[in-house]
């Protein structure tokens, strides 16, 4: 990046400066260096673009008092005096009541420190958009020639996190994240299709490969079929499965389950841990070492939440099975919550994988084995309707196709659905092989997912949407 990155104080120096100046009973400093490049387009023209260089610094200080440990936090994006930030955090700690999630800060022997703390942050720029930057003009030309309009977004960003503590932690992780999404619409918008992919390195993504997928789907839509609302067998592609499972993963709060206010609650203050959620031996897991989906291997939390604690900063993250062999295996707990409930600690991890062990089928294989059903493309505007069942509502988008005798026979109108992702796991007829998937709606929040295609019985299409 050209915008004068050399004049800011080094992240490591900020960490050291704050730790040295801290007069509190414990201190954690998080510095996140971000570098991003992006290109957005619609109607066969670029609409916005940009490059960005950003830094956020979070200072967390502890204050021991009579009733326990209080915590004060202050953060800022941009340049600025880190000591001011420390003093603000100290003021906040002075005003805070004892924290419920207090736990001793981790020490270097408890964390898995690398030797890279002194390394510089990684950066990216427009060249990080790879094929898209150079190929987009030609893609627009091909789209115009075929009477279609392309819209989409390409982004590449790198976040380098530095974590230091008064107990001696000195951790660093650089996380590249990229994605490309493209929608193709016919003139007037009667036919549309979507393709997208996530990748740490957009140099591995070929724009023309996405275009081929779009052309194939637009061709399927040459014939239109009107269908009523009702329950249908559906084939859900991995990207749309990701949209549903991201929300299932987000519902794994241990505290909410214990309080009787989640889909994973059992009567009488118990949870459904150990309960079978599906007759199929599905695994829903997160793993910082998952091949192709590698992510930050330690906890870096700038604020506490119901199951996440700033006291746990630096906690080594390891493979966590939320569902194992079809049973609910793990709920999220910070260390203090886990100790109180007598369960293992489970911190959030920045990827999510759904897998049916042994499954090898492709999406096309699932379609070929469908006697009559609907092949979906995307799910959109998905919102929780009833947390007790994790009932979600939302809509199909950019391609619903009628399958008869294993063949696609035309495109169908869109639907509003009302469904629970947990119920879908039990109504699954067949799952495909797990592959990298990009949640259309949630990918900015969770980019790294791998999912199978699912063939599911009796999917509740609640009403027709005339949207195209």
């Amino acid at each position, binding site marked *: 990046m050209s915008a*004068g990155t050399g004049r800011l104080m080094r992240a490591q120096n900020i960490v050291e400066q704050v730790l040295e100046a801290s007069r509190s009973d414990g201190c954690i400093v998080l510095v996140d260096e971000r570098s991003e490049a992006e290109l957005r387009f619609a109607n066969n023209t670029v609409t*916005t673009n940009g490059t960005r260089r950003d830094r956020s610094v979070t200072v967390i200080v502890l204050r021991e008092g009579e009733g326990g440990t209080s*915590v004060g936090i202050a953060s800022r994006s941009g*340049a600025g005096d880190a000591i001011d930030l420390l003093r603000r955090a100290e003021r906040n700690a002075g*005003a805070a*009541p004892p924290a419920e999630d207090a736990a001793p800060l981790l020490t270097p022997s408890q964390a898995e420190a690398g030797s890279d703390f002194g390394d510089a942050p990684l950066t990216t720029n427009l060249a990080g958009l790879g094929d898209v930057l150079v190929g987009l003009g030609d893609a627009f030309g091909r789209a115009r020639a075929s009477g279609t309009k392309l819209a989409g977004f390409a982004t590449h960003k790198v976040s380098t996190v530095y974590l230091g503590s008064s107990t001696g932690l000195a951790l660093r992780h650089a996380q590249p994240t990229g994605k490309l999404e493209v929608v193709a619409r016919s003139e007037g918008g009667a036919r549309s299709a979507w393709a997208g992919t996530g990748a740490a390195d957009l140099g591995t993504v070929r724009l023309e490969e996405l275009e081929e997928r779009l052309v194939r789907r637009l061709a399927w839509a040459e014939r239109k079929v009107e269908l009523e609302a009702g329950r249908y067998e559906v084939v859900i592609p991995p990207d749309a499965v990701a949209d549903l499972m991201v929300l299932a993963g987000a519902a794994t709060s241990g505290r909410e389950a214990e309080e009787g206010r989640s889909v994973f609650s059992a009567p009488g203050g118990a949870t459904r841990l150990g309960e079978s959620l599906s007759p199929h031996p599905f695994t829903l897991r997160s793993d910082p070492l998952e091949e192709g989906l590698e992510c930050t291997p330690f906890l870096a939390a700038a*604020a506490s939440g119901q199951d996440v604690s700033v006291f746990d900063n630096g906690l080594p993250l390891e493979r966590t099975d939320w569902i194992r062999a079809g049973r609910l295996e793990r709920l999220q707990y910070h260390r203090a919550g886990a100790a109180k409930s007598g369960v293992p600690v489970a911190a959030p991890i920045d990827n999510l994988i759904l897998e049916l062990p042994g499954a090898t089928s492709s999406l096309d294989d699932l379609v070929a084995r469908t006697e009559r059903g609907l092949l979906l493309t995307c799910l959109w505007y998905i919102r929780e*309707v009833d947390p007790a069942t994790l009932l979600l509502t939302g809509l199909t988008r950019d391609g619903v196709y009628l399958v008869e005798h294993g063949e696609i026979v035309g495109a169908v109108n869109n639907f509003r659905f009302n469904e629970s992702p947990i119920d879908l796991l039990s109504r699954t007829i067949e799952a495909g092989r797990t592959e990298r998937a990009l949640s259309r709606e949630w990918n900015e929040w969770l980019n790294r997912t791998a999912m199978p295609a699912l063939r599911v019985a009796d999917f509740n299409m609640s009403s027709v*949407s005339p949207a195209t």
Partner: protein
Amino acid sequence: MATAELDAEFLALPLESVRSAALDRARALGCEHAEVRIERIRSQLVLLRDGRLETSADDLELGVGLRVVRDGSFGFAATVELDADAAAGLADEAAATAEATAPAFGERVELADEPAHGEAVWTSAYDIDPAEVPAAEKVALLEDWSRRLEGAPGVDHVTAYVLAVVEDKHYADLAGTITTQRRVRVHPVVEAVAVDAEAGGFESIRTVAPPAGRGWEYLLGQGWDWDEELSRIPDYLAEKLHAPSVTPGSHDLVIDPTNLWLTIHESIGHATELDRAMGYEAAYAGTSFATFDKLGSLRYGSEVMNVTGDRTVRHGLATVGYDDEGVEAQTFDLVRDGVLVGYQLDRRIARLMGLGRSNGCAFADAPGHTPIQRMANVSLRPAPGAGPTTADLIAAVDHGFYVVGDKSWSIDMQRYNFQFTGQRFFRIEKGELAGQVRDLAYQSRTTDFWGAMEAVGGESTYRLGGAFNCGKGQPGQVAPVSHGCPSALFRSINVLNTRAESGR
């Protein structure tokens, strides 16, 4: 109310040298347009769970963003370094980005004319800067609110939080507009949960107090009666937990402004964004059924439907003095007597569609984000004169439901098919309220729904609702927006039972 002032600490930043360096360099590079924004955004969240502090966040964001138009292409660059050298470097970078992406610009970027406004300042209407209220005072107030509910019979859990945002923004463009603005907003929320431990179910009731373009005084009772609302939550909750499940079907609805604002937001607010209607959001937020060819002819709703956009209403969340393209705040008609008559615009779209001046709807949610068209305060006008009260509207229903407060929401990408739930649903029998039901959702299509609006309440029923977090664009940007509306009566709307929808 005191006249709020600009913040001295923000004014002490090197605003003049940074903006001049960026604009001078952009001019020297031959840019036909350049606008620079130096922004400082303070965001605070204090959240108590069952009376104990769970989350406390105190964030300050400071940076500078520059957008240029050069040879008909946009280029944007942003940094967190606030000095003249970095600002000049930004102009180089933005111009280079415009050049690098120029081959893929299929349309030449031109902006609608806007008069230069010289140097101008503007502040939103507030008394107490919430970012300056000591953390201990925030926690103490939320502890008090939590305690009032925790002690009540039938309440098992209480969550109480307040979000507060203070935006300071310095804007300058090549045409000579230089504005400095301050916006303040707060969103306090309290939710109580009742768990049916034996049967395993639960219900919740949340405050319906809207987020507001006000300061800390809002939490002290200016603009909302917190004592009254908090005192009623336990009874509402106890009744809701044991209320009968709704019988689905076609029913008349009286919808309270605390619910209707969100239906307006989704089915009118987003549908009348012209960038969406023209396909510029097709890959993400979606398009609109209200296409440009229907301007002046689309029957959006019944004759009593009149909708305006504004960036001027006092305490409105989208209210500003000038937008992020230097356009002065305005008020404009979107739907008149049930017919689509206008759109929300930014300068590029206004010029592209030959609509003259932009009506000032450009906004960037952070210094590092490029401005895009974002929502004005889009509001449904009340009936002229005194007009009906909410009780009058309820009296006109033989059998139906009165819907209060928002909860779940979803609408399709062309803004036709929507489904909403709420906080409280009261049965109406022969013009009278007859107790709560639960599990209610209403589902409709935009023009069917607004066409079924038989009556709007009068000024006495009119309230501003709103949200901090309206999402649009890629990378995602969030915008605060308010929606004013009266209570309104709708005939024969499809009511669902959400338990039945889940197959139970």
